[in-house]
């Protein structure tokens, strides 16, 4: 049996409003989908194992790790203003601009394994994504198909091949 691609979907609505996006991924059969609902949970999962694709939301809650709670607090406990998903990307990619330096940064994480699925529009993120070298992006809007998560995962996988 062919081994499945491991995918981490970092999204706080993954168990609520966005469950319908997960179904096509399971149906496709090629992916083993793991969900993280906050930054702390995501970092823990990234440190424990390798993923072929990581799909990240920008507006994430901090979870239980103190540095991320602190950033959340500094932003007035406002996850929209805090943009912890973006800050997490700087951290996991080991950027000099990272506000939180990870002690055990997973070496396997490269920008071509990352995709962004967020309600934010691209112009507001273009500079950051350019700096981070992330090219796979999709805005969450009401008119996207329910296969959008699957499409994004496939793009990330394709991106690595090219």
């Amino acid at each position, binding site marked *: 049996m062919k081994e499945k691609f491991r995918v981490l979907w970092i999204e*706080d*609505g*993954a*168990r*609520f*409003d966005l*469950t*319908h996006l*997960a*179904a*096509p991924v*399971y*149906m496709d*059969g090629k992916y*083993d*989908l*793991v*969900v993280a609902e906050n930054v702390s949970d995501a970092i823990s999962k990234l440190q424990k194992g390798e993923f072929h694709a990581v799909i990240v939301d920008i507006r994430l*809650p901090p979870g239980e790790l103190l540095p991320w709670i602190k950033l959340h607090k500094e932003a*007035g*406990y*406002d*996850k929209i203003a805090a943009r912890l998903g973006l800050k997490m990307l700087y951290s996991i990619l080991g950027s000099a601009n990272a506000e939180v330096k990870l002690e055990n940064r997973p070496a396997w994480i490269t920008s071509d394994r990352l995709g962004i699925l967020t309600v934010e529009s691209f112009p507001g993120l273009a500079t950051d994504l350019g700096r981070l070298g992330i090219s796979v992006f999709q805005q969450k809007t009401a008119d996207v198909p329910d296969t959008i998560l699957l499409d994004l995962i496939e793009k990330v996988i394709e991106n690595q091949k090219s």
Partner: protein
Amino acid sequence: MSVEALEHTLFQQLAQLELPVAIYLISRDGRFLVCNSMARTLLELPSQGTIESSITNFWDPSERQALLEQLWNIDSSGERILTRHIRMRVGQRDVYVKESVRSIESLVENRIIGYLGCLVDITEEQRYEKLFDHLHVGIYSIDANEILVRVNNSLVKILGYDSKDQVEGRRAREFYANPEEEGSFRELVKNHAVAKQIKELVKKNGEFLFALVSTVAVISPDGEYEGRDGALIDVTNEERYKRSLNDVGVGFYVIGSRDGVDTITYCNQQFARTLGYDTENELIGRDIQTLYTAIEDHERFMRALIAKDAAGNPLRGYVERLVTHKGDQILVEVSSRLLKDRFGKIVGRTGVLSDITEEGIFREELKTFQKHIGQVLHNYSSTLLKARHTFAWVGSTIGPDPFESQKIPTLDEIEAHLKEPVQRLTLSLAEFVGKLKPYWQDRGISQEQWDLLCRLLANIENFNREIEVREHHAPFLRGLARELIQVCGTIQEAYIPREPVRKIIREASDLERIVCLASLHQAESIIVAMDHEVATLRDFLIATAEPQDRTHLVPLWSLVRQAMSNLKEFAHSQGVEFRANDESRNVQVEVVERDCLRALSSLLHNAIKYSWKRGNEPPWVQIRAHMKEGMVTVEFENYGVPIPKDEIESGLIFRFGFRGRYSGDRGRLGTGIGLTDARDIAQAFGGNVTIESRPAWRGVSPGDYSVPYITTASFSLPM
């Protein structure tokens, strides 16, 4: 006649002269020999006859010896006459005298036989001298050369020196922070008495002080300037305070009311500038009504101020129009407080104002914008209603609904209702695939279809194990059922037994239907929740954009019942029950009904939204009303989502737009406005909202928010 006799005669004659000074002759040891009538009167001695007393009896016993020795030493000191100021005790009073004494020498015996002295009563002068030195006002005299010739102790102290010697004899300008100012001040004084001039002086240690100086020129009979006398008091603190009032960004003023006229008695620079004047002096003394566009505006302001005062409060944030120096109208925001005398009569008012002309325009625009958003949200409410009804229609169309009507199904309920259809479908599919396996290639199924059927079978058999997120099971099963229906629809039935395929389609459709119904209920519940959020936001925006309604007396519990009725559907959708207990005896509160209902609804909505099941029991919200110490309190208590201690203690939970750390769990909607709005409403009517959140279980360590908490929101109002 002997010399002594001659002398005695002369003294007797001297004593009988009506000289305007007290004269006495005393022996060497101080015994009175002769006194004239003035001396007798001054010292309260017998008006006639021999005086059986000594001058030393009038002296302070502690000073007696020293004073005597001064007499004895007159000649040895080389001075023929001793002049001194002494205090004498006459009867029950102190008499201050200036005494001049010379010795009397016996020419026969060639020795001092007594003393001749005169006394001038200077008691009055002495009192003024004491007043001069002890008064808490600095007093000084400056001569024509601008030298300080006389200062009192208070001036010495105000200037930080130790003695008068350190000040007297110095030029006045040395004490000015700006010496040039002294010159101009002198010129002013030469012509006029100057009162209430603030001058900045320098103390001994270099510190600056502000002094309120009053002075008068000393002019000779022929009109020559001979100097000036003055008094000053240290007003450093007051002046710094006044100057800081000029630095603040608001206009400060004091108005005195007398005989029906309100006159500006004090204002700062900012007040003058706000109204387009260069200095505050241009406004001080003016009738405040002249700054209003209409007398009615002033009367309206006074009515508002008096009404607030009657309630024991100052008037805050009153917006009115005033006229500037140039005649332009400006919009100002005023906060003011009445001043009254001890009989309660209004004698004036103090206040601050700031120009909000630009902000006023912005506020108007913002209110319009708020109203527009409110209207848009109103349309959204209609859209949500349509969506909800459509969902209900779709639900009833797609077949029997195993879930309770209008209630959000829990994950356990969904899984329970899916269990049997999944088993049936798995069995049918497995049976079909098993029978077809030996000869599928010739029976109208392509390789691709066969592979798909096999994969779908594997998926349905293993989904529980392979999909770790339970919430993803149902959507996955719907996708699987849909795909199965599609693939079965493409199988060439001519070569395949018809019934097994139809059975799979039927069972897949049944599975799909149940997932869709669960999803419809979930979406419907989200719409009900969203409808409340939208309605609250809409009401909040419109209510804060419109002028406030009048308050009325309303039974508080009737509003609670109305809030429960409004949220009945939402509570049902969440499976939450109400448990109400009214001990408020239908007490009335004075509120704007609409606002109070919104506040109560927000608190109740929160209690419903953040409720969890209590073990095997469905969640409930406890609603209690009770009275205590003049207040009536409604408590909304729920069991569920914790509110962390730090969020309560720091007041974060009341911050506009704030959503608690745990408030967003399980995908709850929220705007972060309800609690802020509810507290503002309660406070506007003299009450408050407080929140308490404690672990529902015993022995939970502080900061453990993984367990359910009992949260109580208390809404209190004065009865």
